[in-house]
C-alpha cells in the first residue's frame, strides 16, 4: 500500500531540507520526496498536510516505563500509545523498571513487550550497576550484546567515583555512551523543589542547584579520564551549562539534553503545590530557563527529551511530599519544542526539529530522525498554527500527570506515521 503525505512543509534537520514537498511512503520506507502534484492512483491513502510541517517522527532519549513493576502507572502498550499520540516514534526506556534493566533477559523482555511490531521503536538503556545499587558493575558486555543503546543508573547516580570511572571506561570500550549527571544524593536529600526564593516562599525543602553541578563536574572529569562518551541527561542549571561548555571547549565527547518541561516552566509552577510540577531535577529559576533555551539554540545542549514518567491518579492526588517525582511528557513534547519554542522565538523551525529528531538519533546511533529516501517511514504531521489546551483527561492513553494541564499551547501533532503505518490521525489512535 502507498501512502502520500501531501502539500506540507517538509523539514529535515539531517539534510537541512526545508521545502514544500509531497512524501511518498511505500513498504514502510520513505520512497520519494517530490514537488507537490497530483501523483498517484485512487487507491493510495493520502494525508493532507497543507499548512502543516512534515517532520521525522520524534526521537525521545529519556522515557520511564511503568512496566514491569508499576503497571498501574502505565503499561508499555499505554506508553507506546501515548508516544503515537504525541508524535514520538523512537524512544529510549530508562532502566528504572522493577526489577531494573540490569540483565540481558530484561532488555530482551522489554524488546519483546514492545513487539517490534512496526509502531514505535523502543530502545533500552541499561543499568551501569547491578540492581542500580551503585555497588558492582552490571554485566555491561552482555547488556550491550542484547541491544542496550546506553548505560545509566538514571536518577540514582553512582556515588562511588572509582566505580563510576570503571563503568565509564568499560562503556567506552563497548562503544556505548553513558548517561551521567543527576543530583547529588546528599545535597538533594529530603528536597522537593529547587532551593531559592520560591522554595522559601512555599515553605518547601529545597535542593540547591549545586546538587546537579557537582555531579556534572565529576562526570565530565571522568569522561576526560576514561575517554567515555558522556551524555548529561536533563541538565537544568546555569552552572552545569558552564561546565559543559568548558568540557566542549576541551574537545571532550560530551553532549546534553534538557527536558521540555524545563524549557517551558519555572519553579513558579509549584505555586499551588501541583504534584505534577515536582520534577527530577526540580524546575529552576527564570534565568535557568532562559539559559537552557539559549544553550539549546546555540547547540551547547543537543536535544530535548520528555523525561516522561506516568504516575497513577492516586499518587498525584495528595500533597507534594508524598507524591513521586516526575510528569507525563510524551504527549506534549512536540507541542513544547516544535510549537511553543518556535512561537516564542527561542528556536528556528529547523533547530527545533533537529532537537527532537536528528540530534538525539545521532547521539545514540539510532536509525531514526530523518526523512531521506530509504529511511524508515516515521513521519509526523505537525500543525504549527493549531491552538489547543492541554487536557490530560481527554488523552486516549498513558499517564495524565502533566504540569502543563490547563495551559494553552500553540502547535499540535495532527498525524503520526510509524514504520509506514498511520498510527494517529486528528487525535485518534489508529493502525
Amino acid at each position, binding site marked *: 500500500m502507498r501512502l502520500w503525505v501531501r502539500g506540507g512543509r517538509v523539514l529535515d534537520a539531517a539534510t537541512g531540507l526545508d521545502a514544500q514537498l509531497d512524501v511518498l511512503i511505500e513498504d514502510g520506507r520513505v520512497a520519494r520526496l517530490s514537488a507537490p502534484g497530483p501523483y498517484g492512483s485512487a487507491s493510495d491513502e493520502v494525508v493532507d498536510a497543507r499548512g502543516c510541517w512534515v517532520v521525522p517522527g520524534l526521537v525521545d532519549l529519556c522515557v520511564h516505563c511503568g512496566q514491569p513493576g508499576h503497571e498501574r502507572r502505565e503499561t508499555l502498550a499505554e506508553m507506546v500509545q501515548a508516544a503515537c499520540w504525541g508524535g514520538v516514534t523512537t524512544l529510549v526506556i530508562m532502566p528504572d523498571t522493577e526489577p531494573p534493566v540490569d540483565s540481558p533477559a530484561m532488555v530482551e523482555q522489554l524488546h519483546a513487550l514492545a513487539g517490534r511490531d512496526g509502531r514505535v521503536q523502543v530502545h533500552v538503556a541499561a543499568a551501569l550497576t547491578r540492581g542500580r545499587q551503585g555497588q558492582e558493575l552490571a554485566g555491561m558486555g552482555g547488556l550491550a550484546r542484547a541491544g542496550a543503546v546506553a548505560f545509566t543508573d538514571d536518577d540514582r547516580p553512582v556515588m562511588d567515583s572509582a566505580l563510576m570511572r570503571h563503568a565509564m571506561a568499560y562503556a567506552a570500550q563497548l562503544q556505548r555512551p553513558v548517561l551521567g549527571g543527576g543530583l547529588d544524593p546528599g545535597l538533594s536529600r529530603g528536597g522537593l523543589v529547587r532551593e531559592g526564593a520560591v522554595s522559601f516562599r512555599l515553605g518547601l525543602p529545597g535542593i540547591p542547584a549545586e546538587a546537579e553541578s557537582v555531579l556534572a563536574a565529576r562526570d565530565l572529569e571522568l569522561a576526560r579520564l576514561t575517554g567515555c562518551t558522556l551524555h548529561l541527561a536533563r541538565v537544568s542549571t546555569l552552572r552545569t551549562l558552564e561546565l559543559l561548555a568548558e568540557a566542549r571547549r576541551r574537545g571532550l565527547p560530551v553532549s546534553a539534553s534538557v527536558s521540555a518541561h524545563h524549557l517551558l516552566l519555572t519553579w513558579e509552577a509549584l*505555586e499551588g*503545590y501541583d504534584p505534577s510540577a515536582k520534577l527530577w531535577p526540580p524546575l529552576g529559576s527564570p534565568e535557568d530557563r532562559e539559559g537552557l533555551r539559549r544553550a539549546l539554540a546555540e547547540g551547547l545542549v543537543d536535544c530535548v527529551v520528555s523525561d516522561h514518567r506516568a504516575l497513577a491518579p*492516586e499518587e498525584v492526588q495528595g500533597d507534594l511530599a508524598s507524591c513521586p517525582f516526575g510528569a507525563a511528557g510524551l504527549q506534549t513534547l512536540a507541542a513544547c519544542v516544535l510549537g511553543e519554542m518556535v512561537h516564542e522565538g527561542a528556536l528556528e523551525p529547523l533547530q527545533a526539529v533537529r532537537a527532537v529528531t536528528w540530534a538525539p538519533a545521532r547521539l545514540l546511533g539510532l536509525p531514526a530522525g530523518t526523512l531521506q529516501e530509504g529511511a524508515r517511514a516515521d513521519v509526523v504531521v505537525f500543525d504549527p498554527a493549531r491552538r489547543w489546551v492541554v487536557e490530560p483527561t481527554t488523552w486516549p492513553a498513558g499517564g495524565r500527570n502533566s504540569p502543563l494541564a490547563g495551559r494553552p499551547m500553540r502547535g499540535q501533532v495532527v498525524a503520526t506515521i510509524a514504520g509506514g503505518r498511520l498510527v494517529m490521525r486528528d487525535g485518534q489512535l489508529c493502525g
Partner: protein
Amino acid sequence: MGNGMQSNEDPAAGAGRGWGKDLLGLRGVGREAILQVLHQAQAMLPLATEKRRRWEPLRGRVVVNLFYEPSTRTRISFELAARALGADVVNVTTAQSSVVKGESLVDTARTLQALGADLVVLRHPASGAPHRVAQAVRVGVVNAGDGTNEHPTQGLLDLFTIWQLKGRLEGVRVVLVGDILHSRVARSNLWGLSAVGAQVGFCGPATLLPRPQDVPGVRFFSRLEDALEWADVVNMLRLQRERQVHGYLPALGEYRQRFGLTAQRLRRLRPDVLVMHPGPANVGVEIDEEVLADPRSAISRQVSFGVAVRMAVLSLWCGQGELSR
C-alpha cells in the same frame, strides 16, 4: 480556586488580597484583610474568657479539627474558640482515624464534607497539604500548620499580641530568632508583618537561615546581640532537637550560647522590648527559665490571645461576618 490565598506577587508590594473560603496562609493577603481579623479578635477578647456564653453565632455549625501531627495548644485553642462560639467540635487525630487504614488526606476531607462539616481545621506535616485539600472540597479549610510553610493563626495571634502590647504594627521592628528555614511560624510572621508595614529581621545559625537574596526586605543578623539592639520585639522560635542529629548544629549547648535568650542577655535587654515565643519552649535551649517570668515576656498572653484570634477566624470563616454590637 477561589481561596484567594495564592499569588506570585510580592506580599509587601501592593494592597494584597482579601480572604476567600479558606485560611491557608498570610502570604499575599493585604493589610486591610489582616486588620479586619485583628479588630474582630479584639471584640472577641472579653468573650474568650467568659464562662457563660451570651453570643453563639456558630450554633449548629460543625468544626472539625483534623490533626495529622501531635499538638496540644493549637488544637485546644481551636477547640475552645469553636465552643465559645457555640459550634460543635469534632477532633480527629490520625492515630484513631481511618488514616491509619490508608485513606488519603483528600479522601478524608471529602468524607468530612459529606458528613456535614462546616469548616475543617487542618494540621499536616506536608507543606501545601491544606492547599491541596482546599482545591478538592467546597467546605472551608483553615490551616493550623502545614509542614514548614505556614501557621497563619499563630502569625495572626503574634501580630495581635504586638498590636495589643505595642499599640501599633507599622514600623515596629520584629526579629525572629532561630530555625527560620524550617519554621512555619517564621513564614506566617514574615508575610503578616510585611503586609501591615512592620520591619522583619532574621537571626540564627547560617545552616538554619534562608539565603538573604531569596528573602528580599528582611534584615539578617549573625549575632543575637546585634538583633536585640535593633529590635522592638523578639520572637524566639522553638528549636527542633533533631536539627542537631541531622547535622545543622554542633550541639544544643552551643546553640544556647550563640542564639539563646539567656538570663544574662535578658539583663542587658532594653526595658521596652517585647519577648515572644510560639511555644512549646525548650527551656534552657532557646530561652532561659528567667525569661518566662520577666515582665517583658508576652508568652503567656500570646496563649490567651490565641483563643480570641481563633474565635475571630472561626466567626469570620463560618460566614458570620463582623460581630454585631
